[in-house]
């Protein structure tokens, strides 16, 4: 009996020392991510929150605990309406990008057989990202402007005598420019999803007697939904927060929320208000991401 008791005691001891070791090992793995998260996420957000609760007097920041700025985001014009307009521009960009990206991704995934050609086209989609964003936005000025390529073409074709001015400096030109710039993200995400569809699936459907439209609507389209959603989230987010396109190709009424934040920071020197808008947008963004994450999960196809 005594030997059993002894071994039980020893056993408890080894368990204790193993636990100590485990705890030390755990610290080794836990500390770096926690530190990273604290330095790069927690502290900046805390500073943002701290700033947003204060106010500015005579160009000086005065700390406080007031929700006034947050109330103003929703009550004082034009904050809320500009947020809504930015969301509208983001949504239009996301939809247009998907419309442009889908056929290209489809072509790339199902009609390009040679892997070399596939890579080449893929590269052509990415290459514009080697050029500066500003250059690309400017390029649209030369296309859409009154002395631009589009107007020159229209005049040559005899469709109009005067240069048409409705192409540039409005929401339309902002959406077109943003669509052009962010479509590659939609292509990558839709293509990645389409590429997962095995050839045998298409062959099986044809073997069962299904025509092209039936294969597309019953098989390819449902499977590609998560890719379209993921691409939509990326293009929406990027377009929503954009501030360059409104400045370069937008009109007086196409100011977006990021432009307002920049003005509050730089011109008006109202950092607390800017911080409050930032936090509202971040919160909306988190809501959007969880909603779309849920949607993506719902529509995701497991092979």
């Amino acid at each position: 009996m005594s030997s059993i008791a002894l071994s039980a005691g020893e056993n408890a001891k080894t368990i204790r020392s193993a636990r100590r070791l485990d705890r030390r090992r755990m610290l080794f793995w836990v500390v770096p991510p926690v530190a990273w998260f604290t330095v790069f996420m927690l502290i900046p957000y805390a500073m943002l929150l701290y700033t947003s609760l204060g106010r500015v007097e005579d160009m000086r920041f005065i700390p406080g605990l007031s929700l006034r700025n947050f109330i103003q985001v929703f009550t004082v014009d034009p904050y809320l309406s500009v947020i809504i307009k930015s969301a509208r521009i983001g949504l239009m960009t996301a939809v247009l990008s998907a419309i442009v990206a889908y056929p290209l991704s489809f072509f790339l995934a199902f009609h390009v057989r040679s892997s070399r050609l596939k890579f080449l086209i893929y590269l052509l989609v990415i290459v514009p990202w080697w050029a500066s964003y500003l250059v690309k936005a400017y390029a649209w000025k030369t296309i859409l402007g009154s002395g631009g390529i589009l107007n020159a073409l229209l005049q040559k074709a005899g469709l109009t005598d005067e240069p048409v001015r409705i192409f540039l400096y409005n929401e339309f030109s902002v959406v077109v420019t943003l669509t052009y710039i962010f479509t590659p993200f939609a292509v990558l995400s839709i293509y990645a999803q389409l590429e997962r569809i095995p050839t045998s699936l298409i062959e099986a459907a044809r073997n069962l007697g299904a025509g092209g439209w039936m294969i597309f609507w019953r098989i390819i389209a449902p499977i590609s939904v998560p890719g379209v959603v993921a691409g939509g989230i990326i293009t929406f987010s990027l377009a929503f927060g954009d501030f360059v396109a409104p400045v370069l190709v937008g009109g007086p009424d196409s100011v977006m929320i990021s432009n307002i934040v920049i003005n509050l920071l730089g011109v008006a020197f109202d950092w607390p208000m800017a911080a409050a808008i930032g936090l509202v947008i971040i919160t909306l963004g988190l809501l959007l991401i969880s909603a779309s994450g849920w949607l993506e999960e719902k529509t995701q196809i497991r092979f």
Partner: protein
Amino acid sequence: MTTGIELRKLRKLYEGHGQGAWAVDGVDMTIGAGKFITLLGPSGCGKTTTLRMIAGLEVPTSGQILRDGLDITDQPVTDRDMRMVFQDFALFPNMTVEQNVTFGLRVRRMRGRYSEAEIKKRVFQFLDLVHLADHAHKKPHQLSGGQKQRVSLARALVTDPQVVLFDEPLGSLDANLRKIMQIELIRIHRELGKTFIYVTHDQDEAMAMSNAIAVMRGGKVMQFGSPRDIYDRPANRYVASFIGHAHIVEAKVAGRDGQGLVVSLGNGEKVRLENENSAATGESVGLMLRAEDLAFGEAGPGMVSGNVADSLYRGEYIEYVVELNGGAGVVHVHARTDLPAIDQGAAVAVRVNPHKAHVLAH
């Protein structure tokens, strides 16, 4: 006019890395209606390409495919009344089991053939056939490999095709499941009486299930015949060594006596074969000796002598590796496990079953 499928000089060129190669190189075959035919061979022998050409998923470079005497070489895949069961199952991942099986009944060609109520009834009838009616609402990713393959089979059969094509359908299943599925397939073939054309590299599968086997190699059919024909009377050395565990010993035809053909081995010993009449006296031949057709016996005339080089305990039997005297060759002999074990190096005499040994032309 022949009913069934006829392949005439079927060839398929594959272009790759600048040089073409014949994936299928002149296949001639007649597949009778209602038969279970297997295309058997190692990977790259052209069996899958042949099957895909029959299905219409590949276009032949030359040659013809006839269906009940009609040329269907250029008929689009969607119009061929043949269904394929794929190696990777190819189930539609976005649909339930029921929707997968229903798919083929909703294509344009099938429209009007069955009413909605009939479709539902038919789908469940075939899900029952493969024992999956309880899983109708599940998505493919919730099924095991064997269940997926059965859905794939139900989806193929539900449209009532006259021909069902199988592309290594059991390749990704484990050994036990494969055996169960083999029996299922034989049962379904018997119940429905459709033509089954089956591709596999597994000779046991081919032997167990088929009415006839086409052994393929390098895009050509090496032999097309019943499993018994192919096993007992292989047409050439390749078929002999691909099917079963045959050992081929070099020999010469010594002549003929009242009971059959007499061949002499390299060491001068003579073996009599009773079912052979194809070889001429003096001809060099390969003597095919399968382990199960050999037995140990008392030394004497008509026996082949040698020494045991190795023995392998196989559970069901002991397999002895016997080196024949005078370097005439090596054969394997199966012996019952309850007989006394024979030591390595011991001199033995081997009796050859005169009905089963077979000569192969050089």
